[in-house]
């Protein structure tokens, strides 16, 4: 009788072990599902790099035809009193009419490009520079506080522009 009871307990223990193993197997499979895809990783890393690289190499209307990189260097070097950019209007409605210095012009061009690309593509981003008061953020993509924006990952790219003296760093973060 006692032996039979022991056998039954062993049977129950075996069933419990099997069920636990099954549950463990199911949970581990569910957790293994990857959050980000190849495309997302690629696009965010490459996109951050390409956007900065391309925008820095873009020639600006007016401002003596300087590149955005040159405008930023000039701005960092000379401040608001830098080269005067003539007017530049984007829209027929006259919504964008500037008579500005290099800093404002660079900010306007970068802002326009980001709004026409990353914002249109619904990519939360944050672009900022060291030393200059330039900051573009879309959909609360803040690397220092990802939780607040509800982001799990951020791809970042930093470019360094040489100044005389010093350097200017430009960083673009793309959140996902």
């Amino acid at each position: 009788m006692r032996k039979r009871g022991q056998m039954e307990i062993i049977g129950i223990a075996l069933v419990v072990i099997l069920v636990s193993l099954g549950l463990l197997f199911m949970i581990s499979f569910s957790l293994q599902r990857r959050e980000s895809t190849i495309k997302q990783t690629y696009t965010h890393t490459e996109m951050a790099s390409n956007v900065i690289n391309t925008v820095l190499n873009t020639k600006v209307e007016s401002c003596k035809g300087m590149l955005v990189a040159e405008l930023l260097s000039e701005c960092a070097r000379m401040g608001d009193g830098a080269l005067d950019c003539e007017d530049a209007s984007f829209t027929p409605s006259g919504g964008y009419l500037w008579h500005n210095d290099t800093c404002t012009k660079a900010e306007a061009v970068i802002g326009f490009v980001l709004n026409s690309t990353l914002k249109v593509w619904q990519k939360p981003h944050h672009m900022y520079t060291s030393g200059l008061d330039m900051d573009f953020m879309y959909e609360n993509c803040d690397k220092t506080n990802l939780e607040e924006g509800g982001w799990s990952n951020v791809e970042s790219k930093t470019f360094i522009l040489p100044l005389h003296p010093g350097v200017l760093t430009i960083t673009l973060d793309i959140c996902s």
Partner: protein
Amino acid sequence: MPANILRKAQIKMAESVGVLFIFFILLGFGMIFYSNFQKSGMAETQLEFSEMTAVELSQKISFLPEIACTKNGVVDQDCFDIIKLDNLTKRIKDRHDDTFMDYYSQVFGNANITVTQVYPLVDPDEDPYNPSTHRSWYLYNRTPPGQYSTFFTQVPVVLFNATTGDPDERYFGVLEVEVYVPVVTG
């Protein structure tokens, strides 16, 4: 054989059958779960493969010698020469000849490739935030027959205008690649 022993044996047998029944039900659940998981894994692999095709194609176009900017024979990365872009778009649009088209069909496959100039705006009357009004080069478009799904990739590129003679005549553009992948049913 006494009746009570026979009944005891019947109960034992029913118990064994019950245990086996429950065991097979659990096994069945396990198999269903595993096959569903395998199926979703296969669909995920197919999706990844399609996405990789889109990414690979955008990379291929970025280095296409027919449109890439070059300086003393050295390719300028992520830069398209507007003159070359105009010429290739025209030749593909005019369906230059069969060999020519066959070649590009092999290179691009089923895809829609467009290059758009984002900044500066060419026409002051265009809406700056509506890409459909921007200057665009519709490089190539071929859709597969039947049902297909699409995978979209955008790559910012520099557009170099060599006609002015200024080496800094560079605009902000976007290469848009839409890859069509036939839907496999069954």
